[in-house]
Structure formats: structure tokens, C-alpha cells
């Protein structure tokens, strides 16, 4: 039996399990690049117009840090400016997800042992996982290339964009394959692979913005290579060469590690933890806080980074004001009060509020997921009352979005300080807090769903958020009637900073949230725990 026996069967099995994940991801990635390119071309049909409209924004260092340097100052390059690097990151994430799912995750839950006992070669599972991931990566690049050519972009440049994505995707196939050999837990594998992706992103962010000799750092990161392909500019397709060499080396390393270890083991053994619980952990509040902590810290980091980026863009906003189309779009999305900077921040905060609501909802839904996993029952069998167990979840679900909104308000105010028409700290924090009542209505719906109908809680809570977002934030853009838009809590948020605070609607939102939460407590008290 060769070490690859059974690869074909495993590949078909993996494809069968991913037949939704991969096609949907590829379509979403293509929609991202083609959609944004099409929108830009519609706004700026010629190179000159594109340069005039966008190059000011694109010179901003925080934009370059986020999206990478522009490939060339022409219409096509500008139209894919935001999607080269972002798309490369997403393709990398897809590659990571596919490889990890079919290797370390399978091994941790013990299914790989079942497979390994059948007629399957030692290297077959990893080979199948990497083959499927590579196919997904190449598919993403190819589909996007076809789509971009179809909307009228330069064919060679479109191929180069595909190559830029494939470069990042292949690197992550190799990185994840190695990470899967190192650790025993799928979570630690995720930590290593995503950590490497983060470092690659940071290296090139520093390299791209620092200039001079530091720009060498961009060449140390496969994500930097994606930008250096310079799609629609120099079109350096040869960058694929070093990417293949790197991926080949990583794959060889992964195989040699695999050959040296037992099924189920890793090179790094898991660190032992504390043998006693700290004092704070023995209460419902302490326990829920501990369980929700990793996700909460992730959200907080993301919000602070986003706040810094949004704040950094304030200076460039005034430049955009010269374009009436953008002003028109911003007013539709965010309201018309105040200066263009206020409108910009108000618009961004409207989207940020949706993310904050999502964070709160995910904490509230822990109540239901703990119960379904069988971990709620042992807690309720202790002297923990239902009220305090639900209360602990509710408290964190409410507190997290409030903290996140304050953090992003602070980050924006500090970063934007002294730039353009930036609002001060107090108006910015006020604008953040103005979003809280609407967010809490959605959190309260999630709390009620988790308390009353745990099996359907996810669908109800995320459905409510999707409807509220669709009606409240996008309803005006697509011309829905006002009464329908008003169903969304987000439609009643005052357009701060710059606009008028509306105490009445704020109070109504708070009351709705409070009553919904009260219903949750009443429902949770009387139902059977499942």
C-alpha cells in the first residue's frame, strides 16, 4: 500500500462535505472583486476621472496599510484597489479553513482514526485536504479573472489579479498544513495559522507604508507579493514562481513532520493549565465571563483597529466631498446633518452598530448553545438559579456592545484628533452611545429567543439582525416605504455626530429592549430545560 492510497476517495468525501462552503465562497469572492470594479467604472469611466476622484484618498498611509499600494494609477487598477489585498486575505482564509477542517479537526474528533484504520495511506488525508484547498484557491483566482474580463477590464491585468490571489492562497495551504502537524488541538492549529496570516499582513503593512529600505519587509510576506504583482500595472506574473517554491517547501515540511508523528499527536504538546479555579470563577458571572472572554477580546481588537482606520481616513474625507455622487450616497446611508466629516462618521457608525449588535447577540446565544451542548444542565443542577444564569448572559450581552461602541468612538476621536473637521472626544463618544438603544433591542430579541426557544434561537436572532440591517441601513437606498423602514430599530437612531439627538425615540427603544428582556426572564423561569 502506498502512502497515498485512498487519496481519491478522501478527496471526494472532502468535496462532498464542502460542496456548499467552497462554491459559495468562490461566488462571494468573485462578487466582491467584480462588483466593486463595476461600481467604480460606473462612477469613473475614464483613467483621468478615476485618478482625479480617488488618488487623493489612496495616498493616505492608513488606506495603504489596509489595502496595500496601488498597482498603477489607471482606471482598472483603481477599480480593484480594495479587492487585491482583501481578496488575497479571504482566499488565504478559505485555504486555511479547508485544510484545517480536513486534517487537524478530523484528527481531534477522532474521525481520522476511523479513516486511518481503513485502506488509506498515511499521507492521503493531508494530500486530499491540500488538493481540495488548492483547487478552491485556483478556482477563486480563475473565476474572478473571468468576471473582471467580462465587465471590461484589461485581460492580462485580470489574470494578474487572479495570480495575486492564488499566491496568497497557496502560501496559506502550506502554512496550515504545517500548523496542523504541530499541535494536537484544532484550536491551537487555528491560532498558529491565523497568527502567521496576521504577521504576513502586518509585515507588508509596515513595508508598504514605511518606504525606503523598510519596504523590503513587503517582500518577506506572501501577502506583500500579492500587491507586488501590480495587477493592471506591471503585471508581474512571475511572482507565482517564488510562491510555488515557498508552498512546495512548506508542503515538504508538513509531510516530513507527518511521517515522524503518531495519529492524534502533534509536535507541540498542549501546555497544562491551572489545577485549581481562581476565586472569581465560582459564580455564574465569573463563569460566563471566562467562557465569553476570548471572543470578546477578539471583537475588542477588531473594533479598535477599525476605529483607528476610520479615524485615519477623516483627513481624506474632505477630498471626497468634491464628488457629488459620494456625498449623495453618504446622505442616503447616513443622513444629512452636519459637515461632510460628520456624515461620513455617522454612516460608518451605522454599520459599526450592526457589528456591535452581532457581538452582543453571539454572547446572548451562548445561553442556548451551552444548553444544547449539555453544559447548561449541570449548572442549573447546582444552587445557580435560572434567573442568575440568564442574568449573567444578559449582562455580558448588553455590556459587550456598549464597551465596543465606546472603544471605537475613543479610537476614532484619538486618531482623528486635529485632522480636518474631526469632532471632539465628547461628541464622538455621544455618537457612539446614541447607537446603544437600537443595538440593545436586537440583543434583547436574542436573549428572549435563547431563553424561550433554544433550538431556534440562532435563526431568530440572526434573522432579526438581518431584517433590521436590511430595512434600517439599506432601506432608504433602495427606496422602501418609510413605515417599513421604521420597523427597524436602526431607523430610529439619531444621525450623530452632527445631527439632533432625539430623546423620545431613544427612550422608546430602551423601553422595548427592557420589556423584551423581561419577557425572556419570565419565559426562562417556566420552561423545561432541555
Amino acid at each position: 500500500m502506498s502512502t497515498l492510497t485512498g487519496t481519491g476517495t478522501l478527496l471526494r468525501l472532502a468535496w462532498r462535505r464542502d460542496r456548499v462552503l467552497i462554491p459559495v465562497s468562490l461566488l462571494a469572492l468573485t462578487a466582491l472583486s467584480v462588483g466593486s470594479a463595476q461600481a467604480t467604472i460606473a462612477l469613473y469611466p475614464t483613467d483621468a476621472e478615476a485618478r482625479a476622484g480617488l488618488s487623493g484618498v489612496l495616498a493616505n498611509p492608513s488606506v495603504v496599510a489596509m489595502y496595500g499600494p496601488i498597482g498603477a494609477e489607471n482606471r482598472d487598477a483603481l477599480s480593484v484597489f480594495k479587492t487585491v489585498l482583501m481578496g488575497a486575505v479571504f482566499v488565504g482564509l478559505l485555504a486555511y479553513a479547508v485544510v484545517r477542517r480536513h486534517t487537524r479537526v478530523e484528527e481531534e474528533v477522532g474521525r481520522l482514526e476511523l479513516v486511518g484504520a481503513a485502506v488509506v495511506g498515511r499521507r492521503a488525508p493531508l494530500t486530499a485536504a491540500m488538493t481540495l484547498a488548492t483547487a478552491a484557491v485556483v478556482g477563486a483566482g480563475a473565476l474572478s479573472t473571468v468576471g473582471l474580463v467580462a465587465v471590461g477590464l484589461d485581460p492580462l491585468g485580470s489574470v494578474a489579479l487572479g495570480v495575486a490571489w492564488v499566491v496568497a492562497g497557496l502560501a496559506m495551504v502550506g502554512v496550515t498544513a504545517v500548523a496542523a502537524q504541530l499541535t494536537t488541538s484544532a484550536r491551537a492549529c487555528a491560532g498558529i495559522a491565523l497568527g502567521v496570516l496576521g504577521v504576513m499582513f502586518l509585515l507588508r503593512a509596515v513595508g508598504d507604508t514605511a518606504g525606503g529600505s523598510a519596504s523590503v519587509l513587503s517582500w518577506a510576506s506572501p501577502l506583500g507579493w500579492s500587491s507586488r504583482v501590480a495587477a493592471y500595472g506591471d503585471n508581474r506574473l512571475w511572482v507565482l514562481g517564488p510562491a510555488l517554491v515557498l508552498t512546495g517547501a512548506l508542503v515538504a515540511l508538513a509531510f516530513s513532520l507527518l511521517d515522524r508523528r503518531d495519529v492524534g499527536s502533534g509536535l507541540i504538546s498542549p501546555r497544562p493549565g491551572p489545577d485549581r479555579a481562581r476565586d472569581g470563577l465560582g459564580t455564574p458571572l465569573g463563569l460566563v465571563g471566562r467562557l465569553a472572554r476570548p471572543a470578546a477580546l477578539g471583537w475588542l481588537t477588531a473594533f479598535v483597529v477599525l476605529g483607528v482606520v476610520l479615524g485615519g481616513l477623516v483627513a481624506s474625507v474632505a477630498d471626497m466631498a468634491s464628488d457629488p455622487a459620494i456625498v449623495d450616497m453618504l446622505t442616503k446611508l447616513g443622513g444629512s446633518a452636519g459637515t461632510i466629516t460628520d456624515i461620513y462618521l455617522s454612516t460608518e457608525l451605522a454599520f459599526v452598530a450592526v457589528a456591535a449588535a452581532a457581538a452582543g447577540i453571539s454572547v446572548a446565544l451562548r445561553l442556548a448553545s451551552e444548553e444544547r451542548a449539555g453544559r447548561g444542565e449541570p449548572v442549573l443542577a447546582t444552587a445557580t438559579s435560572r434567573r442568575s444564569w440568564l442574568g449573567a448572559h444578559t449582562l455580558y450581552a448588553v455590556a459587550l456592545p456598549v464597551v465596543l461602541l465606546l472603544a471605537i468612538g475613543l479610537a476614532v476621536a484619538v486618531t482623528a484628533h486635529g485632522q480636518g473637521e474631526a469632532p471632539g472626544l465628547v461628541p464622538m463618544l455621544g455618537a457612539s452611545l446614541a447607537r446603544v438603544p437600537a443595538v440593545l433591542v436586537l440583543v434583547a430579541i436574542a436573549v428572549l429567543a435563547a431563553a424561550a426557544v433554544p433550538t431556534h434561537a440562532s435563526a431568530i436572532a440572526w434573522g432579526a439582525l438581518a431584517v433590521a440591517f436590511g430595512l434600517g441601513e439599506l432601506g432608504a437606498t433602495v427606496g422602501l416605504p418609510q413605515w417599513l423602514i421604521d420597523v427597524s430599530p436602526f431607523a430610529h437612531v439619531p444621525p450623530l455626530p452632527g445631527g439632533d439627538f432625539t430623546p423620545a425615540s431613544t427612550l422608546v427603544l430602551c423601553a422595548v429592549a427592557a420589556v423584551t428582556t423581561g419577557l425572556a426572564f419570565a419565559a426562562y423561569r417556566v420552561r423545561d430545560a432541555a
Partner: protein
Amino acid sequence: MDSVIETQDLRKTFGSTVALDGLALTVAEGEVHGFLGPNGSGKSTTVRILLGLMRADSGQARLFGRDAWTDATDLHRRVAYVPGDVALWPNLTGGETIDVLARLRGGLDERRRRDLVERFELDPTKKARSYSKGNRQKVALVAALASDAPLLILDEPTSGLDPLMERVFQDELHAARSRGHSALLSSHILSEVERACDRVSIVRSGRIVESGSLTELRHLSRSTVHAIVRTPAAQDISTWPGVEDVHVGESGTDIRLAVDAAHVGEAVSRLDRLGLVTLTCEPASLEDLFLAHYGTESATGATTPSSEDAQVR
């Protein structure tokens, strides 16, 4: 003696399925009470009603004389629970989990916690994600047994333990009883119940069909007699009063039979008249009792046990 658990006419239906159909269970203070029945007979539903996790449609469930549903939180300070399928928080260590569960209940005995961790050979510094089923079960057992709760409710607590650890569990259960604590041990491992329990209740289709001490229950059932005699019996042995299931060897001197408790003496003296060489007389095992209620029942899915540790699926 006061009862620590008392249910009367407990009824619970899920849709069209009747889970409990007038269940009446009593556990006296200081006793270890076996709660026997195959899966789907209503054991876990009863346990969850006793813990106030579910509300009965009708009937009463009382712990320490108080209502299991309305006084649940307060009662739980005096109750330690071990579920059959223990789910733990994957990123907490075993040691942390023991402390969390015990503290949520109201504290634990430090010295006993140390001893139990050692006796169960549990590594408390490992993350729960890497524990096997048996180790997860140990975590829940240590958390429950290290507490000073006077009532243990154990729902198939040894399903993942190896025989050595099962023995440790038996010892610790015995020690808890010596401290004056009571326990309800829901199980389908008959040998475990036989070894650990003072009294037994057998549940079938949501009702208690048999309840009492093992001696009492045995009295209701037939003993097995195996005798080797000198002269074959002249008459048909199966016509003897109270005797059934007679098997006679080819020589006619090797006799096996089952006899009900009231006629054991008479059967033995009749055998004696045939010139006894050897005689063994065994009271009914729990397995026999159990099979008497379930063995013929195909609808409940009861199966023929193949070993002493008959597991009814």
C-alpha cells in the same frame, strides 16, 4: 426514617410519548437506592424532574420534603448531581471545572477533593477538550463526591469508567453512605446496583413495577437449585409444588430446577430423600428479577444479557 426523595403519581408526556405514567418513588434518608430500567423507561426524565430542570405535568416531586420545582435553587445546595453524559467546557481544565461546579453548589471539602483526584487518577491540569469520556465522568464524580451534599443524584455515573475506577466509585459511594448521605443511583448495570444499593426500584414504561430491598425482592422470586443425587426420581419432578424449569441429566441424577421462595424447603427435603450428594441453592439475582420484568418484553427493546454486567439497551 424520613424520606429524602418522594414522588407521587408523577406524570410527564412529550407530545404523544408518555414518559412518566404515575411514577411513585421513595428514597429514605441514609440509603443508596438503585433506580433500574432500560433506556427510554423514564429514568432520566424522573431525575430531571427531581432536579427541577423539568416540570411534571401532574403529581408531586419532593426532595427533603420541599417541592423540587419551586424550591429548586435552594434544594440544590443539598444535592450533588452527576449526569450520564458529562459535557465540560473545552477550554477549562479538569481542576477548574471541579471547583466551578462545586462552588456554584456551595463549596467542597478540600481534603476529600485532593484524595478523590488522586484515587480517580485524574490529571486536573489538562484541558477538558483532551479528556476521554471516562475522564470527563471522573471530573463530574469528583465535583459531586467532594461536596458535602447530603443527597447524591447519579444518572448512570459509571458508563465511561474502567472496572478499576468503577471499584473506586463503589468505595466512595459506600464512604458517602457511612457519612450518612443518601443516593439515588440510576443505572442499567445490574452488578453495580447489586453491590452498592440497599433498596431497588425497577421502572418500566414510566411506572415503578417493583420496589424494595434486594432480600424482599428475592423473596418474590424463584431460587435456582442444582443437586446431584444417588437415585433418579421415580416421578416427574415438575409436578412438585412450586417447582418449574426442571432439567434432568441423562443419568437422572443431575437435577436443576427453579423453585419459588415458599417451597424451597419442601423441594430440598424431597431431593434429600433421593440421597443428596451435592446441593447448591442460589437466590434470584437482580438480573433474574430484571429479566422477569423485561425479558419477555420485546416492545421495549430489552435484550438477553450475556454476562453478569448485563446492559439493557
